[in-house]
């Protein structure tokens, strides 16, 4: 493979015009993967209404490949956490994430899913879903416009297209050593137990220089 001469994109275009497609397994895999991301029918709060609006006629998420929103996590690729994740709901979100088969992606839509949002100082609000599950794309806004959700989806597609199939940069679902089952938090007496998953999230530290 390393001995083959490199094909320039111009030559590739020429070949394609003759009906010959030259590609690599990685390109085919990521092309198919990125253009058919099916979200889970999962809306928590206000951002869910903008997510529904994004799937309706004016904004039409279907033209980006997300044609169907699947109600069952077993059939979905993408978890769009849209809305505030409360501590009471957090175990269910993690359970749903565990039930989605790999390859799976997570978009945190809206300020509440990213960090708790306007309700951050709250006894029942989880300060961001990235405390328990790994998030790929963060979409700020309260609520973000449907166009912002589409932008986030396009960024996710770009990220998927950049995946390497082998090697240390491979995504989570292609590495043998990665964790696929995330621990579900329990309800404690005052808070969730544990309040965050230490392998997924660490509290940021500040280094003040001078």
């Amino acid at each position: 493979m390393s001995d083959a001469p490199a094909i320039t994109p111009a030559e590739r275009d020429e070949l394609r015009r003759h009906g010959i497609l030259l590609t690599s397994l990685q390109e085919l895999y990521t092309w198919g993967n990125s253009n058919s991301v099916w979200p889970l029918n999962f809306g928590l709060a206000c951002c869910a209404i903008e997510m529904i609006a994004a799937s309706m006629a004016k904004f039409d998420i279907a033209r980006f490949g997300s044609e169907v929103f699947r109600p069952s996590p077993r059939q979905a690729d993408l978890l769009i956490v849209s809305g505030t994740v409360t501590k009471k709901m957090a175990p269910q979100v993690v359970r749903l994430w565990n039930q989605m088969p790999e390859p799976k992606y997570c978009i945190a839509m809206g300020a509440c899913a990213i960090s708790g949002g306007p309700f951050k100082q709250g006894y029942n609000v989880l300060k961001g879903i990235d405390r328990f599950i790994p998030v790929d794309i963060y979409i700020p806004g309260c609520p973000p416009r449907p166009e912002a959700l589409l932008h986030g989806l396009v960024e996710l597609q770009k990220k998927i297209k950049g995946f390497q199939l082998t090697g240390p940069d491979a995504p989570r679902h292609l590495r043998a050593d990665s964790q696929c089952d995330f621990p579900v938090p329990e309800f404690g007496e005052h808070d969730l137990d544990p309040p965050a998953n230490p392998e997924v999230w660490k509290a940021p530290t500040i280094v003040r220089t001078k």
Partner: protein
Amino acid sequence: METLEQLRDRLLARFPGAEVSVVTNPGPAAQHSLLLGPAHARAIALFLRDDPALKLDQCSNVTGVDWPDKQITDTVRTPVLDAAGATVRILEEKTTRLRPGYLEIVYHLYSIALRHGPVILRLRTTNRTDQVTAPSLTPVWRACEFQEREVFDLFGVVFDGHPDLRRILMWPEFKDHPMRKDYVEPDDYEWEPTPHGTVLEKAKGHYPPPAAGPAAKTEELKN
């Protein structure tokens, strides 16, 4: 509709020995309320619902309020007179007393049949610590069912006679009553770029305070 004082007199005549008093509302809204004692509260509520002049058939809102212990200072001013009877000076005597706190439940009642309202009822518990019971008005108005469960969940008031008293908004294993004024949240502070107010106090406990002056602008966020 009759005034609140007339209603109170009618209730006292109907239920002798009941504790009914008018609580005035000082603001411009002038929505005064009736404070009821726990012993006759449910009987009075039934009367209010079925009385043909009132027919308060809709309980619109049930609210819990937490009144913590309050230090009240009483000042007594006595003038000191000289031999001629003129005031030389005024002696001020200040005594502080503790008004014990209590939990209060406020009911807003309206009449759909006769189109009047609101008649506002207040029930108070004895204190905030161990005697936190109050009679439930769910047997009178079904609308109180979920709202009294919410007051139990968030304030800790135990309602006697409620058909299904358990937590409604928080999970069952939760131990605190979060809407009380002295509720302390679990310490779960996460970095914020511009903390202020009460959040700044929490921030100081977790992160070193920035140095004053223009040099403090250089800080790196490391994860």
